[in-house]
């Protein structure tokens, strides 16, 4: 347990080992650690940014969908209105057409009735004249009483 040259040997060994550690061990390890630290920090920041981007994209998508929904409902409303319009237009057209046809039919009917009446009147007056002729052939000359007979036919 005496002090001897081992002491000097150990001191020299320590100087050499510490120097070696300082030159060749510590710097590369520290560099690697620090590099990884910055990498991790960058990665975390990137993840954060990605999260934010995602959030933004989500809200944007929601906005777009909302707008589309609004547009769709607008289009639907317009279509409904247009349909109603068409239906009512159709209805109005129908009513008009019906009225027109009704008027036409009535006019025709009246015309027909008038014609029939005219015809009937002619026939009746002819019958009346014929019957009156038959009667008058015996009593009255047809030619002298023609004006009376015509007046009669017009009155019928």
């Amino acid at each position, binding site marked *: 347990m005496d*002090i*001897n*040259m*081992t*002491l000097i040997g*150990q001191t020299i060994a320590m100087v050499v080992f*510490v120097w070696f550690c300082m030159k060749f061990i*510590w710097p590369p*390890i520290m560099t690697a650690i620090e590099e990884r630290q910055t990498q991790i920090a960058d990665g975390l920041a990137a993840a954060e940014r990605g999260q934010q981007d995602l959030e933004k994209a989500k809200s944007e998508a929601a906005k777009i969908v909302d707008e589309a929904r609004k547009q769709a409902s607008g289009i639907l409303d317009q279509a409904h209105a247009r349909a109603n319009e068409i239906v009512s237009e159709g209805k109005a057209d129908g009513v008009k057409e019906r009225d027109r046809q009704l008027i036409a039919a009535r006019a025709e009917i009246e015309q027909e009735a008038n014609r029939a009446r005219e015809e009937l009147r002619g026939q009746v007056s002819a019958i009346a004249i014929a019957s009156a002729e038959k009667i008058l052939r015996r009593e009255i000359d047809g030619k002298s009483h023609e004006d009376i007979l015509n007046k009669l036919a017009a009155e019928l």
Partner: protein
Amino acid sequence: MASEGGHHGPQTSGEYIAHHLQNLQVCKSETGDWVWNECAGNPMAINVDSMFWSLFLGLVFVLLFRGAAKKASAGKPGKLQAFVELVVDFIDSSVKDTFHGKSTLIAPLALTVFMWVFLMNLMDLVPVDWIPMASQAIGVPYMKVVPTTDVNITFGMSIAVFILVLFYSIRNKGFGGFVAELTLHPIAPPLKGVGLLAAPFIIAFNFILESVALLAKPLSLSLRLFGNMFAGELIFILIALLGVWQLPLHFGWAVFHVLIVTLQAFIFMMLTVVYLALASESH
């Protein structure tokens, strides 16, 4: 003397212990020949076993960490790299907590001191007879395997630290500042009046006090480590004398010793950093 050169004779407990505490020494005798193990009191002797294990373990540390450092990348670390980075980061944060200046030396110094002392202390956990008996079998009579139980080794390291402390003190405070720190504390000498007569005595008193404090640093640093490890080793040797009861006792003491091994390495490292921090901070 205890059995030498592979000779196994009946051994008393005293001989057994003395044999385990004997270094393998080489020195030049008075006749100028190199002689083994006849060097008691010779200041030029070298403890070959301490030196060998110290250098071997230092190389283990250096090669292990250099291997990891060479392959170190910022990417996904391997297992060795993860372990090395764990130790490096631990040392780095310990140093940063204590030493506030900028230095490229302190942290690697602390790492080397911690790992080296730790590995040397760790040799204490190898059962006390294994390596000495194996070396006796190949003809080496003595083999003390725990370098930190050799006061030369611990002193060698603390002296290197002491030289660094002196270097840092003078570099950061200047030679004048260093001398002033040794002479003007803790009692400030009066600078004028009648008190000036007392100033030399006060300065002398301060110098003696501060020198003791300064020299106590390396002394306590090395003796603390040496004392702890020597005592632990001695207890292992004593337990080894107990016959079959040594097994549970050995286990218990080894478990406890794991703590001492780590703690002493940490304390040695931490005090080294603290002394250097004190040396480089001006108050």
